[in-house]
């Protein structure tokens, strides 16, 4: 019941943040870090966000990376505290407000990810996680998103019970596992002025990478990770299926057992004997452990995210393709090629 009450209060706290305002500096630092360390498929770059809450707005004004090569006797917490202390000395915001992580093609969701975000959110109420995708940025779209766990998910984690029933009571589905928070990049006026100046200096053709038409390869990558996720989900559903069948079987056996018992008891009563003592039925039939449903839920969420990204990408790519087709029309020789690729899109 205590949980209920807290959950009732939770939305108030949670609503405090509906906007993440990230400084240009932070974005630049994250991008730099992620491109340096998180560009290969295996490595993930992570770091700490610093900032302050103002009303319902979280201002992220600085960040620093987690060191990559950890020795055995390296104390991460010490390092963080040290860093924050130093930053405080130079009069920078030193409040821990979350963390950031690099990702590959948006495949960042995992139980570990949720768990660490949960610990962040329980210790620092307002913390967010920023996800940055270097690959997408390379294709011309800055991909930086802010996420938080939903209050239901936090409550679920607090209960530490991931059975199907627990998820049901928490009114949780894969869609409500986490929520995206609007993200604004904020620059000081000086920086804005500098950017304006720079944009004049940058030659116009430098922007050509935004017109990259490489649709197939991006889609292929998405499809590949989608296939992988679906595979895993398939296995999970299989497991659940087996569980269900076992439960049904056990239920039937239980019923049979009870019926037999009742029959015997009535026979005994007819003979005037004392009825059999009541046995704990759970002892006879041990409950089958419920497979945790968190994993499939995370997978579903991941699949959903992928699908979202694919559809977003497709709409963008289609627009681009139509645009380029229009541009190419005076040169009919290449038309066929374009048609081919538009088909694949």
């Amino acid at each position, binding site marked *: 019941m205590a949980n209920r009450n807290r959950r009732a209060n939770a939305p108030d706290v949670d609503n405090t943040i509906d906007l993440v305002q990230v400084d240009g500096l932070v974005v630049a630092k994250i991008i730099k870090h992620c491109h340096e360390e998180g560009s290969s498929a295996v490595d993930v770059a992570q770091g700490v966000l610093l900032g302050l809450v103002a009303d319902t707005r979280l201002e992220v004004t600085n960040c620093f990376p987690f060191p990559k090569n950890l020795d055995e006797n390296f104390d991460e917490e010490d390092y963080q505290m040290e860093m924050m202390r130093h930053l405080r000395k130079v009069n920078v915001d030193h409040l821990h407000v979350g963390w950031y992580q690099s990702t590959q093609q948006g495949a960042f969701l995992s139980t570990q990810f949720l768990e660490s975000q949960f610990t962040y959110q329980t210790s620092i109420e307002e913390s967010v996680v920023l996800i940055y995708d270097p690959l997408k940025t390379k294709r011309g779209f800055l991909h930086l998103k802010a996420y938080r766990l939903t209050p239901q998910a936090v409550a679920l984690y607090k209960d530490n019970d991931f059975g*199907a029933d627990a*998820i*049901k009571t928490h009114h949780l*589905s*894969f*869609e409500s596992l986490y929520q995206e928070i609007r993200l604004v990049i904020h620059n000081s006026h000086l920086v804005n002025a500098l950017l304006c100046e720079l944009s004049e200096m940058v030659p116009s053709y430098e922007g050509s990478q935004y017109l990259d038409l490489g649709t*197939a390869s991006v*889609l*292929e990558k998405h*499809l*590949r990770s*989608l*296939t992988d996720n*679906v*595979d895993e*989900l*398939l296995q999970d*559903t*299989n497991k*659940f*299926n087996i569980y*269900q*069948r076992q439960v*049904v079987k056990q239920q039937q056996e239980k019923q049979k057992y009870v019926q037999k018992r009742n029959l015997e008891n009535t026979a005994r009563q007819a003979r005037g004997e004392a009825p059999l003592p009541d046995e704990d039925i759970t002892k006879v039939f041990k409950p089958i452990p419920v497979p945790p449903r968190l994993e499939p839920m995370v997978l*579903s969420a991941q*699949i*959903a995210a992928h*699908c*979202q990204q*694919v*559809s977003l990408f*497709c709409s963008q790519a289609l627009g681009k393709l139509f645009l380029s087709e229009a541009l190419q029309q005076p040169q009919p020789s290449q038309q*066929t*090629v374009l048609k081919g690729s538009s088909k*694949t899109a």
Partner: protein
Amino acid sequence: MSRFFGTASDSDTESDVSEEEVQQRPTAVPTYTFSDDEEEQKRIVRSAKEKRFEELKDIIKLIKNYKKNKDLSKMLSSFEELTKAYQKALPVIAKEEKGVTPRFYIQCLVEVETFLNELWEDRDGRKNLSKNNSKSLSTLRQKMRKYVKDFEADVAKFKENPDEEEEDEEAEEKSEAESDEESEAEGPAAFRKSESETRTKPLPKVKPIAPEGDESDDSYWDSDGEDETSSSDDDSKYANLKDKFLKVAGGEDDKKKEKKDRKDKEKAQRRKDREEEEELEMEGGDGWQVQGKATQAKPKMFAKDADINTGVVLKKLFEILAARGKKGTDRREQVEMLHELYTVSEANNLGIGIAVKVKFTIISAIFDYNPKICDAMKPEHWEKLLQCIAELLDLLNSRTDIIMGEHVSEDHEKLDQAEYDAEQDPSRRFFSVRGCMLTTVERMDEEFVKILKECDAHSNEYVERLKDETRVSAIIDSLQTYIERQSLPAELCRLYMRKIEHMYYKFDPNTIKQSNGESNVEKDTTLAVMDRLCRYIYVNDKEERIRPRAMLCHIYHYALHDEWYKARDLMLMSHLQETVHLLDPSTQILYNRTMVQLGLCAFRHGHIKEAHHALLDIQSSGRAKELLAQGLLLQRQHERTSEQEKIEKQRQMPFHMHINLELLECVYLVSAMLIEIPYMAAHESDARRRMISKSFHHQLKVSERQAVTGPPESMREHVVAASKAMRNGLWKQAHNFIINEKMNAKVWDLFYQADRVRTMLVRKIQEESLRTYLFTHSSVYDSLSMATLSKMFDLEQPTVHAIISKMVMNEELMASLDEPTQSVVMHRTEPSRLQSMSLQLADKLANLVDNNERILKIRQGPFGFSRGNQNVRFGDRPQYGNRQGQQGGGGNWQRRGGDNRDNRDNHRDNRDNHRDNRDRHNN
């Protein structure tokens, strides 16, 4: 060693006349016979005690020695002997010493016990003992404990005053000496008698003293002694010349005089020896001296002017042979003696029969010299052996009237020249000797292989030994002429097999020259010889054991000389693939070698697929080295026992027959590359793609795992780099990776006519690159000009045309050829990569939906809804209870379905498929 032998040998140094020394012992025997008739009763009693005590003391001395060397296993055996000897001595002790155990015996026991206890306490020391020794230690200790219990009282007494013992012994010895002297002083008769006793004693005592190494002397000695006594008037045999000389020339008187002289001398010696006895006792090397002396004596086996005839020589020969294989026989000596015998028989012109017989015996004695079957012969013996066999074969080949074979029984041997000469009937004028030359030569051949394996393959020594290969081959050839004369098919088969095994792995450049018509056709190539020999075996082999080997060698030889079709056909006809696993390991190894050689041959001829198949079995396991018997692999999982290792070592091929493993691997990887890369390109999006070559994929994966790939260094890296280049259609780069100086030095130059192989390889790379290019990039093109393609891959247009036609024929490429424009028009029926992936995803999603439905179905109970129509499914749902859960599941699907609307079309295409699946699931 007995005291007396010790003295005798010691006197060796003092008296320079060795001949005299030699004659001493034999003469002792006759003396004994002389004195035999006097005072028999007394002598026996005394000698019994002395004899027993001598025996005991000898053994005790030995035990002391072993104690010093800590040779526990020998000590154990000596101890057992000691107890036995004591048991024998018991009645004597009871009689003479009134049942009191002799003090020296107790002392020995006490000493041994303390020694054992010390050793037992010293734990570290015990650990260091060899297994054998530590085992003996524990058994000895137990026995000792039990045994000592019987002597407890004596031992206790002894321990009380151990000092007494020395004086005692000294006293004893003194008294003994005195008694000796006394007896000597008693008079000539008595003296002679005692002397004779002392002389006779050594004979039986030699055995326990030197259990190893001088039994031969012993037995030899014995026989001599017997000869001496039994055949004093038979002039044929004397163990020493002078003795014989004396007997014949001087007669009895001289003998007596001689004896007296010697007696005086010996007396003096014995005194001296007494003084030196302590040292001598400790030395323990007396036995060796005797042996050395014996060897000196041995080669002189006949009396100087004895009438040496066949019978005598034969007798001698059998005598030597009788010692063969006995434990203490000195094998080196035997060989020497046989040689001596041979020279003697030669010198006396005893005829060829004897010569052959003795030679043959020499050969087997040389074989015998090496006691261990797995060790190789020593080079000097090997030289001798080769020489002997060659000589013997020359002998055999020089005459046609010598029959040598296993079928000749021992009794029917005809060796006597005189008999031969006397025989009137020419049909019966022959010598017959028992012995199988073929077996000998086979054995020799095996020894040869062993010797080669013993040498370090990279040393000069190996080369030196390998030079003997020609001699071995020559011997086999001359044996061939000999056996062909006798014409026994079974033996001939065996011999041919030997010959084949010496021939099959040797490359004869003449063969290829001949097939090219360059050299004169007259000359017999090894291929022709091989053909003849193998055919003979195919026809005549009855045992079915040689034939497969011959066949494999034949195939090997064909393959080696680029006779690909002949080799392949023979291999296919032989059906050996089916039965090879039933054959013995060495034939299996030969099979592996043959397959490998076949693969190399196929590669040289550009039959890449066949090469790959032939090498696949050997290479895929990564145990090529082991399978070809070219070295032992380290096994991590289970250690070999030493027994296993020995067996495996025996199977190893000698180094000069090895097949280069790197060449093998390179050929395999390159053929795998030429097959696999186009295949991979063709089936890139196929989920059910199989791997053709696992090890090739392994190499690819290893290189992919590396963060940074540098320029290739090893052969494997070159092939991998070439594969990567080929995948992208960069045939020139691939060509440069496969054929460059490094690879030439490592691999390609090992081929005969390497340039031909290289041109073939370049050609293959071009063709396969073209195919790969078409597979990978055909989806991009609407049409392709064949002229461009031929320029791109540096191939003639007809070749390009042929390749593309073949691909179209095999439905590998969805295209058609447009003749007028010389171009390929793509049909675009193949799904693009993205499309095929979408199809896969759709498949998986369908499965997922199925599973989800099943989850729902259980909740709903057995009602179900109409199966065929997907859209109805969700409409029906609200009728059933437990809405929440369903909404979760159903919602999931709906949502995903919405997102995958793009895939819907594909999905629908797959629905039939899907429905089948579902039915299967439901069933």
